[in-house]
């Protein structure tokens, strides 16, 4: 049995579908942060069979978790403060995502103007469809 210690302040991201842990790691920008991060892959789960878990020790105001809902809205977010779970946060699909998805439409202005931020808006919350703000092309990028 693998044991990872408690954190004092930060996040425990639980029930990440097995194999998506690294995607969460990169999309949250954790590779650019100097805080302590533990990634547990393929942990046993009653609900999922296998799951990934990420523990991040950081200021709880530091991390923007919007992107998590896009990866999988069933991920459990535990916010930890003073060693205790402060809240279990429900994930809501953000209305707009900046710099997370990339437009693949070769006719889109972003294909020739590299410095433009790639911005997507939530076009259909039920089907979880995001479209490019500039050309309205549906996001085709796997998260």
């Amino acid at each position, binding site marked *: 049995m693998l044991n990872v210690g408690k954190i004092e302040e930060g996040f425990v991201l639980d029930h990440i579908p097995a194999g998506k842990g690294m995607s969460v790691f990169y999309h949250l920008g954790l590779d650019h942060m100097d805080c302590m991060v533990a990634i547990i892959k393929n942990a046993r789960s009653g609900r999922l069979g296998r799951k990934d878990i990420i523990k991040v020790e950081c200021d709880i105001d530091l991390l923007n978790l919007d992107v998590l809902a896009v990866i999988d809205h069933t991920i459990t977010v535990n916010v930890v403060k003073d060693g205790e779970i402060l809240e279990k946060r429900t994930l809501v699909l953000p209305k707009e995502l900046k710099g997370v998805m990339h437009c693949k439409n070769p006719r889109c*202005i972003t294909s020739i*103007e590299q*410095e433009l931020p790639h911005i997507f808006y939530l076009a259909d919350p039920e089907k979880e469809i995001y479209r490019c703000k500039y050309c309205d092309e549906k996001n085709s990028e796997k998260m």
Partner: protein
Amino acid sequence: MEKIGKNGKPLRHLMTPLDMSVEELEELFDLAEKIKNDPDGYAHICDRKKLATCFYEPSTRTRLSFETAMLDLGGKVIGFSDASSSSASKGESVSDTIRVISCFADICAMRHPKEGAPMVAAGRSTIPVINAGDGGHQHPTQTLTDMLTIRSLKGSLDGFTIGLCGDLKFGRTVHSLVNAMLRYPANKYVFISPEELKIPSYLRAKLIEMKVDFKEVERLEDVLPSLDLLYMTRVQRERFFNEEDYVRLKDFYVLNKKKLELAPKDMLVLHPLPRVNEISVEVDDDPRAVYFKQVQYGVYVRQALIVTLLGLV
């Protein structure tokens, strides 16, 4: 927060026809009618104002329509008509170009082959930007032209059976017109096209979700008697997977005098132009053929748009 333009008035742009509410569209069309009926009364409303036509790809019709609109309002026109004669050929970004143009002109009409380019410009501009066509994406002033033509010649925008014929898959004018007309709930739609060129699935899903009365058919003759409006578009050979299908279907979508006999006497035939062979020239003299009047309405609606976005009314 509302952005203020360089003229000290709230800054508004036009990227899609849906940027304007139904009430705002009514005001715009009322103004276009006033300009049509009293051109002298508006002949100096844009004195000392300049329109920049920034056309990154050639489009004689739309550019000349915008330029005519501004000149008839007493304003002046500057601009370029293809990317090679602009700083884009030196690698300048759209954002930088519009910041420069904002110093020269009071309003800008932009056409660009890349989708979303006018939106990028609008984000950096201090003058109103009108999307004059961005690739296959949006061409809002064409839709406003179509709507003004219908409203002026039919008296309203609601309660019609609208036939849309030809390339309904790739034709942006069709998608844009349908999306704009969906805000008038009593309209019915008949989509007339070969299997290969039917409306895109997202549009069909939207029509079903909104419980819109519509049907999709292959033969124009079958539905002509039931139409109040017929919007023709071109069926292009290159859209077909094989030559055999093209040859089989191409004449289905040519409107000639004989077919027009099946249509009601007060039906209107519209076309965004340029027309190639999908409407026989013999139809041109029929009073129901209004596609050249449509061009004139295009000037009126652009005049109304310039005046509105400049905050002159």
